[in-house]
């Protein structure tokens, strides 16, 4: 079955972010296809390369990057939501004249069209966070 996930929660803000990651792993481990993970609203903070949680706390960046590498999972950060919250690629930082870029490797900025596309292409769309 083809799955897409939508993540609204910032990492470390609650259980939803960690649940999304575990669900993503379970989808792949059970032989399903993970078509896309779309990070929206506060979820765009997942794409920041600058998060530095204490060593004894869960890392919520590297596991997504590993999932991307191992399974070619599409990790899309909504560009409009990301601009509001300061998650920028090098080209966006340059274009918007901001002093730094922080979009992590493995993540890409994309439009809301990619959410519509994920919904159309997937058998199941599962949302994490938002309340």
């Amino acid at each position, binding site marked *: 079955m083809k799955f897409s996930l939508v993540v609204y929660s910032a990492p470390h803000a609650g259980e939803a972010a960690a649940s999304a990651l575990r669900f993503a792993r379970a989808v792949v481990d059970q032989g399903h296809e993970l078509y896309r993970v779309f990070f*929206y*609203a506060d979820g765009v903070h997942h794409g920041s390369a600058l998060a530095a949680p204490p060593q004894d706390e869960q890392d919520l960046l590297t596991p997504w990057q590993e999932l991307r590498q191992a399974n070619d999972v599409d990790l899309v950060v909504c560009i409009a*939501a990301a601009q509001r919250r300061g998650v920028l690629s090098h080209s966006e930082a340059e274009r918007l004249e901001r002093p730094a870029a922080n979009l992590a490797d493995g993540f890409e900025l994309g439009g*809301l*069209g990619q959410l519509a596309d994920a*919904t159309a292409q997937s058998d199941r769309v599962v949302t994490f966070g*938002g*309340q």
Partner: protein
Amino acid sequence: MSTHTLALCRQAPYGSALAREGLEAVLAAAAMDQAPDVLFLGDGVFQLTADQAPQEIGQKSLYRNLQALPMFGVERIYVCRQSLADRGISTESIAVPGIEVELVTDPGALLARYQHVLSF
């Protein structure tokens, strides 16, 4: 199998960014000719009340985004009747120009008709 989508708007207009970002997602999908049906439920019904004055708290009007819906082909919205009643909002006070409001008494049955539900 149908891939038709329902967007669920559950947030009051200025208390959560998800209210605005949900409507933006609806408009973006509609612009791609994939307009979802939309159900306003719970505190989401507050998005539909007229006479909002968000400039008083430094916010942009979300009602304007609603008014854009018909231009993108969304000409009907579903609204939960019980959510309105629970909040003391009359059905007359939630008109959006160019949009037909269809009151829903059984949101669960409506949700069950869709392949996908995007919850905002």
